[in-house]
């Protein structure tokens, strides 16, 4: 009879191995440095001196996939983004200016 060691299964040995492993991890961990100051930079991630970004900033945004697209159309996007100030007064000025321009064009063409 051919016995494969990988087929061997004994719950008691598994439990004992697990306990020994946990004890070893606990022992190893308990011998670590305890003198560091919690809540200071000593507990922060070391990134060669760079500031570690917050957890919410550590993912790659889908926007990055379109980098080439935005780069190619930069000449269009830059003034467009600049025009979108988020101030209602600016939008009303745009609205009045465009309405006036359209009115002038229609007047010149003779439609009004």
């Amino acid at each position: 009879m051919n016995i494969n060691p990988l087929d061997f299964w004994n719950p008691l040995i598994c439990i004992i191995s697990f306990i020994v492993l946990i004890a070893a991890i606990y022992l190893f961990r308990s011998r670590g440095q305890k003198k560091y100051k919690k809540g200071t930079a000593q507990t922060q991630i070391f990134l060669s001196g760079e500031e570690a970004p917050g957890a919410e900033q550590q993912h790659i945004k889908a926007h990055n996939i379109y980098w080439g697209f935005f780069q190619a159309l930069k000449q269009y996007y830059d003034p467009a983004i600049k025009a979108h100030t988020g101030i209602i007064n600016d939008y009303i000025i745009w609205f009045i200016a465009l309405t006036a321009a359209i009115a002038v064009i229609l007047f010149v063409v003779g439609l009004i």
Partner: protein
Amino acid sequence: MGLNSFKRALWVYHLNTGSCNGCDIEILAALTPRYDLERLGIVLVGSPRHADVLLVTGPVTRQMAPRLKRIYEQTPDPKVVIAIGSCGIEGGVFYESYNLVGPIDQIIPVDVYVPGCPPRPEAIIEAVVKAWVKLEKAAGQKVA
């Protein structure tokens, strides 16, 4: 210095803040077989979070100042800072540069100064030994 000073290995983190690499080469020379600092348990480590000593070279450029400060803060206490080379002590040949915010002791407290352009490995080794004594005093251990 007695055997009490060699109870554990001294871990050193080396940081270049804009050095010409002269001092850095001398630090490496101290680790080569000719001087072989590692036989005394003095080891360069890759993270300040593991270090006892910060070995800082260079006159501290504007870009490196916040990084130097952050690395110092990330080093666990007790810690000792060694400024290696004339640049780190008083700017050296770069002292007039528009781009310097150093020397090192303007950014972080320095415990041991090693002048020279670059200092010889023997001087660096002596500085590390002095730092070690200071570190043990800070840690409350017995120093012979």
